[in-house]
């Protein structure tokens, strides 16, 4: 695969010099009502990085794509929120429960998306939102877990994320999660694959530059799950991580596994202060 690898590397080296792809200064106001925080100061823990300002991936998209997220009817991701709502009210499993049996209206989930992944004291582990959803299903409903990056999981995550829309991401990085957070940070800066790229090589060192014909963003995950024009469906965080690692031509970690859970915690913390956007729209 020498030919293709060289091409890919050449694209990485040449493109930044040829075309800058600066993020824009547009303001995201959803439905003409909710103003979102899409740029904000870097959190304390990133003070030794080259990132001068946090920016939502929304700023790196074309006006047409940006517009799709600013109206809940134009946003195709919202159709999957409707699906998620149907799932919320559906009784499944041996206990005769639906999500609504315990949590009533999904508005009870307000604030949840903003603080995940977080420590679960009873389980003694860091849990992503997807892990918590599946824990609820298996422990409280006696139902089968959703496939970790599957459509039903994405629908439910979108429904829950929407309840926190506009709230700043605020994941804890100290206390019991500190070790896992450090592990995630190490993964973020570790080069993988035949292309020997770390997350940081693209999303910290080169955001704002082009990678082939696409704009490199900061790789923020505040907008997940995200509706991608590319595959016309909601995409989960771990599915995106898997795609990114695969593109470095590495064997990827398992979605839902400890490596990606640690990485999600760390990457989420790099967005502390940006609004929850899910379900966002990206290319």
């Amino acid at each position, binding site marked *: 695969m020498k030919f293709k690898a060289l091409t890919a590397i050449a694209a990485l080296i040449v493109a930044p010099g040829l075309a800058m792809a600066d993020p824009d200064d547009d303001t995201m106001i959803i439905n003409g009502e909710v103003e979102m925080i899409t740029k904000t100061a870097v959190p304390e823990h990133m003070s030794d990085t080259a990132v001068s300002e946090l920016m939502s991936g929304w700023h790196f998209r074309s006006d047409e794509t940006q517009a799709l997220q600013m109206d809940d009817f134009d946003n195709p991701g919202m159709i999957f929120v409707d699906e998620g709502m149907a799932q919320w009210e559906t009784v499944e499993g041996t206990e005769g429960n639906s999500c609504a049996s315990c949590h009533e209206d999904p508005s009870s989930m307000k604030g949840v998306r903003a603080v995940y992944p977080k420590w679960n004291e009873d389980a003694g582990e860091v849990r992503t939102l997807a892990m918590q959803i599946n824990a609820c299903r298996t422990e409280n409903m006696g139902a089968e877990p959703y496939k970790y990056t599957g459509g039903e999981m994405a629908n439910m995550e979108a429904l829950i994320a929407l309840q926190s829309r506009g709230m700043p991401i605020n994941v804890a990085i100290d206390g019991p999660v500190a070790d896992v957070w450090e592990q995630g940070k190490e993964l973020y800066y570790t080069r993988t694959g035949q292309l020997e790229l770390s997350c940081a090589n693209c999303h910290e060192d080169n955001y704002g530059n082009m990678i082939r014909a696409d704009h490199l963003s900061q790789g923020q995950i505040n907008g997940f799950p995200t509706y991608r*024009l590319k595959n016309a469906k909601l995409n989960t965080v771990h599915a995106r991580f898997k795609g990114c690692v695969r593109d470095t031509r590495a064997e990827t970690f398992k979605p839902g596994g400890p490596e990606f859970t640690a990485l999600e915690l760390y990457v989420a913390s790099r967005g502390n202060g940006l609004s929850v956007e899910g379900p966002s729209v990206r290319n």
Partner: protein
Amino acid sequence: MEFTRRETLAVGAAAVVATALPLPALASTDDAIAAFTGGADVADGGVDLDAPEIAENGNTVPIEVGAEGAVSIMVLAAGNPTPGVATFNFGPMAGATRAKTRIRLAGTQDVVAVAKMADGSFAKTSKTVKVTIGGCGG
């Protein structure tokens, strides 16, 4: 995946042939227009066609078509494997003869909108939309 010189030449020759062969698609675009108009003359212009100059992803390209006095508007993508996209037929309760949708474009190409007017005449507008390739994942 290392190309020998001979293979490289073959690839190059194939590329030349490929670029010289947009004819089938073009012909079927003409066929589609002829089927729509019944072979009548088509005036250039007079149809509003809004599409991005550069589409961020060819899978979902927002477009808007409109033509005052139209009874129907056919949209074609001249460079797709089959050129048909949609035909909008406006009824008596239409508030305006315009519509928006989202379409698939297989690559950089011309999008064509042909309007059939209430008086039986036809008009046509086309616009080139550049479709970019993706990032590292393609």
